[in-house]
């Protein structure tokens, strides 16, 4: 029983991390039909910005409790500066091209941003561990967990719920849904599609940067941080269905729980279990769990 509780808790924590990292990817694909490989770079940039800004402020005497706000602020800074710059400066000129071409362009952006990270921060690791242990810890089933993990879960729930609420309960969200369903008709109806693209890309990038910023206190922030994340994020959104918000949530929960159960009960299989789940889902639902077959437009 004790182990089962641990499986669930570890699974939820991992799912929360995965969801925050992946949900921006699915949002951008859903609206813009772009498989954004540079998503991993925004995650890494969020982590680097959080580690360096929070580290500098803490060294300058900032009360440690404010570091959580600084993590969020750092992610916002990354997204607001780079999101519109990349979307308006590069991607908008490519929308007419094939999806595969845009995929390659985002891959190129990923490589460029990886080098930009090395130019700015070098290759030495950055640490901002204070926020992780600051709130203390709680015990469950003879295991100790820092309260910080609850913050991660809270951030994931806030991101998911906020996004769902925006999409379904606000005028902006409904306009965005119209853009998702049919860009051409939306444009004909007077919706400024370009602006929606820019806002969506920036918001999706913000979600990635938040993922990186709130992960920074638990890891060594080093070059290549975004590589692993982008691979896992793709797995999650493919399981759920590309472009589906509930799909990303369910995909993250499935991957998180299956990985956690494997580590606890069959650690030898941990290496491939995520991809096994993905393969099984795709075998039965080639478009993912939440995507319906689409009639071909003629």
């Amino acid at each position, binding site marked *: 029983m004790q182990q089962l509780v641990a499986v669930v808790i*570890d699974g939820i924590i*991992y799912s929360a991390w995965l969801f925050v990292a992946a949900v921006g990817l699915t949002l951008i694909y859903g609206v813009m039909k772009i498989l954004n490989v540079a998503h991993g770079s925004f995650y890494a940039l969020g982590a680097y910005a959080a580690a360096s800004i929070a580290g500098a402020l803490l060294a300058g005497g900032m009360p440690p409790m404010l570091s959580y706000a600084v993590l969020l602020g750092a992610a916002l800074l990354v997204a607001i500066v780079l999101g519109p710059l990349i979307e308006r400066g590069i991607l908008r000129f490519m929308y007419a091209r094939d999806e595969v071409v845009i995929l390659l362009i985002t891959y190129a952006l990923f490589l460029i941003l990886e080098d930009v990270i090395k130019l700015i921060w070098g290759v030495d*690791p950055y640490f901002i561990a204070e926020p*992780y242990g600051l709130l203390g810890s709680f015990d469950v089933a003879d295991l100790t967990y820092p309260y910080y993990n609850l913050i991660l879960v809270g951030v994931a729930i806030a991101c998911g719920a906020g996004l769902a609420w925006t999409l379904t309960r606000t005028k902006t969200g409904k306009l965005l849904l119209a853009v998702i369903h049919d860009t051409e008709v939306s444009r004909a109806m007077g919706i400024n599609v370009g602006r929606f693209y820019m806002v969506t890309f920036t918001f999706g990038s913000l979600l990635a940067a938040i993922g990186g910023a709130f992960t920074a206190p638990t890891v*060594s922030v*080093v*070059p290549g941080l975004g590589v692993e994340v982008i691979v896992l994020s793709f797995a999650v959104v493919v399981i759920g269905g590309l472009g589906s918000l509930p799909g990303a949530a369910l995909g993250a929960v499935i991957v998180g729980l299956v990985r956690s159960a494997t580590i606890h009960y069959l*650690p030898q299989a*941990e*290496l491939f279990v995520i991809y096994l789940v993905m393969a099984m889902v795709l075998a039965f639902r080639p478009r993912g769990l939440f995507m319906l077959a689409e009639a071909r437009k003629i």
Partner: protein
Amino acid sequence: MQRTRKLVASIAAAALCVPALAVAQDAAPIKVGVVTFLSGPAAGPFGVPARNAAEITIEMLNGGKVPKPYDQKGFGGARLQMVLVDESGGTTTQVTEFRNLVQRDNVDVVIGYISSGSCLGIAPVAEELKTLTVFFDCGTPRIFEERDYKYVFRTSSTATMDSVGAALYVKDLKPNAKVIAGLNQNYAWGQDSWGDFELSMKQIFPKIEVATSQMPKLFAGQYNAEISTLLNAKADVIHSSFWDGDLEAFILQAGPRGLFKRSVVVLTTGETAMYKLADKIPDGVVIGARGPYGPYAPDNELNKWYSATFQDRYNVPPNYAAYQMTQAILGTKAAWEKAQAANGGKRPSIDQVIAAFERLTFTGPGGEVRMAIGKGHQAITETAYGVTKKVGGKMTVANVKRYPAETVNPPDGVKAADWIKNGFKK
């Protein structure tokens, strides 16, 4: 007659030119390919210190500023020219880069490789291209156990030394240990490290129980579930050969969860993180440095010079990756100059350098290195372990125990696993 004079003059001129050509050839620079991680998670803790070590060692050798017995400039008087390559990108990339080094850059010798995966991939290619290749850090014992190599050498000990040394240290530290657990990366280095440690512990403690062996993938970064299983294991001893950013992430995540309080944690490569994360590592964690390096380095003139020179240049003490890089360069220099001496002072051929390298004994900043196993291609050194202890807020190691090379390395021609299973018999 005039033709004869011309012929004599030509022969005389040619004869005069021969020594000049020989001198020019001897003085030609030796191109050394240096391969280490310059990007990715291993760059900061391993690759960059190793690159710095290569830069400073080659610079000092070229300037003739290294203490005896390495005070001759370069290799046998010939200047060294470094060609630096990034080790990141995976084995396939590294094989291509190696071919580029040999076939495009025409290097005379390649010194490098941190990842065991890289070494396993490069060794057969080095053999195919007949290029003297010296591995400076990678640890998997498989390289010289699975086949013989003529052109490949490794001047650092294998993971077997780390694992056997760790088990012997545990024997003294926790003589009543009953349960062990492991957290190692799922590739050659992690698997071999855990395999040797588990076997050694079973030899030393026949009734030892293995609670769990966790093998997350390299660069996974998130270890909450693994840490839960280790906490649940309630093991007396937890062994981890984690390195790079993974080691640092594990320390950051395990500390607040009380893992270091619940079990004795053995970090076989912990030296690379112990200063950076000094405030996150509590007292009592067993720290290894993959040999007598860093805090375990001997108090000899070479080490005093090396650590002071490195510290002056880079404002940090050299870690074990830096020691091992310098050790590899000095070992190659020792072999080169031994071959050159045997060749009447002329630049030796690569075959002559190889003959001199086999079974060579030389001294590095970490002490004596003997190319004693792997048919003279694999080094053995002593090793040391200790536990972390903060003294005046500064991280140190206490309760240090040293293990002679023969105690922690298998004899020549015997596979590490067989040697351990046979009760470490010589």
